[in-house]
């Protein structure tokens, strides 16, 4: 033991010195540093959790938004379809109305033409009768009974194909 150098004062000094170092490091190093490290890891854990919840929240709201957008799109589609339908119907109606109007106008015009034609024929007939009587007076050289002659001419005209038929 002596040759190895083991002696009680040396051993006790070593143990006391080591214990002192243990206490120094415990209070100067481990306690404050472990505290800081634990705090930091707690903080990191917390912020990770916060980030996780934020991510979930974002995911959720995005899904919601997508749903809303989808709904809005469907609604818009429906609205467009409806509008198109309405427009189609409107067009059909307008078209029918216009056609009707055209038809009516054409009928009116045809009636007008017919009336004009009848009036023109009437006038022509009158003039022609006058002319015929005048011509006859010249030929005969005397006045004819205008009334009877006019009746005669009317009859002839009625029978003729050109100016007859007041249809």
């Amino acid at each position, binding site marked *: 033991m002596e040759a190895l*150098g083991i002696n009680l004062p*040396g*051993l006790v*000094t*070593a143990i006391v010195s080591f214990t002192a*170092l243990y206490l*120094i490091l415990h209070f100067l*190093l*481990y306690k404050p540093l472990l505290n*800081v490290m634990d705090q930091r890891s707690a903080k990191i854990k917390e912020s990770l959790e916060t980030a996780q919840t934020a991510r979930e929240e974002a995911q959720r709201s995005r899904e919601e938004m997508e749903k809303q957008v989808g709904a809005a799109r469907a609604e818009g589609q429906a609205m467009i379809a409806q509008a198109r339908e309405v427009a189609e119907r409107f067009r059909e109606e307008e078209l029918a109305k216009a056609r009707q109007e055209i038809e009516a106008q054409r009928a009116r015009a045809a009636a007008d033409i017919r009336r004009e034609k009848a009036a023109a024929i009437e006038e022509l007939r009158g003039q022609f009768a006058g002319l015929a009587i005048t011509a006859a007076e010249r030929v005969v050289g005397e006045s004819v009974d205008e009334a009877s002659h006019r009746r005669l001419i009317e009859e002839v005209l009625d029978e003729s194909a050109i100016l007859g038929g007041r249809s």
Partner: protein
Amino acid sequence: MGRLLSSPKVLLIGAAALALIIAGLAGGALGGAFGGGFIGAPIAHIQLAAEPITASPQIADIPFFGDFRITNTMVAAWSAIVVLAVISWLGTRRLKEVPGRLQGALEAVMEVFLNACETVAGPERGRRFFPLVMTIFLFVVAANWMGILPGFGTIGRFESAEEVIHHAEEKAEKDGEHADLDNVKLAVFDGDGFLAVQPFGSVNEEITGAEYEEMEEGARPRAGLLVPFFRSANTDINMTLGLALVAMVMVHYWGVSVLGLFTHVGKYFNFREGPIMLFVGLLEGLSEIARVISFTFRLFGNIFAGEVLLIVMAFLVPLVGIVPFLGLELFVGLVQAFIFAMLTLVFAATATIHHDSEGH
């Protein structure tokens, strides 16, 4: 490679290194055998026990203890403690959420050991074992690394030839023998008064105590021994034994506090499971004592051997001989610190395991 060799700086450094190596080989004890030896000094005195740094004890005749003398290993141990305390103080003076460099480095080291503790012993017990494991590692590595600093083992008190011979005679008297002064080696120093140095080229200037005694009173050289002020703390077996005792006492304290006194002691004095288990328990108890011894001598042996290796290399090839071995000692010092700390952790973990939970 070619460009590197043509650089004048590299060439200059290479030439200087070569010159140092040649000077070391020729100037040391190795060259001394062939007529060189112009740098070296006699090999330093190597002894197992730590040397007291003062001639007389600080506190004499403490009852039961004997004399208390401050040894050079105590000084080194206290220096290591002061260095660790100062580093801790600097590192934790201004604690920040985002650590600075020193705080970051300390945190990194602590993280490694905290993780190891929690892996080996579980989160709860790991936290409990951590301070001791960490302290053992830090102290051992700091002491080992400081032990290879320049000045350790080379600067010290000059112990005169009279003192050395007196000690040798005292020791012989206690053992009941006659002092063999032929085996007391003394180195010859230069200088006078307070300062004494071993001069260059004094490789063979070594005399024995007997030769010294025979010389005339006036013609005696200034002979004696160098007692270094600093010597690596773990080359003192008191230090390593102290560490081992603290570690094992704490291990068993934890064993008792976790398992209870009867369960823990019952592991070593097992009377309930037949004679074979009783024998196994006793063997286990014996191995606990063996652990203290292996703890003590593993660390002591490694560091003391390293110290001797450095002394011998410095003696054989001065200037450059120790360079590769300094690197080796850095490595050994770290590894030994790690082993001591980890074994403490593993012993603590196994001592606090419930044997019933092993699933019979």
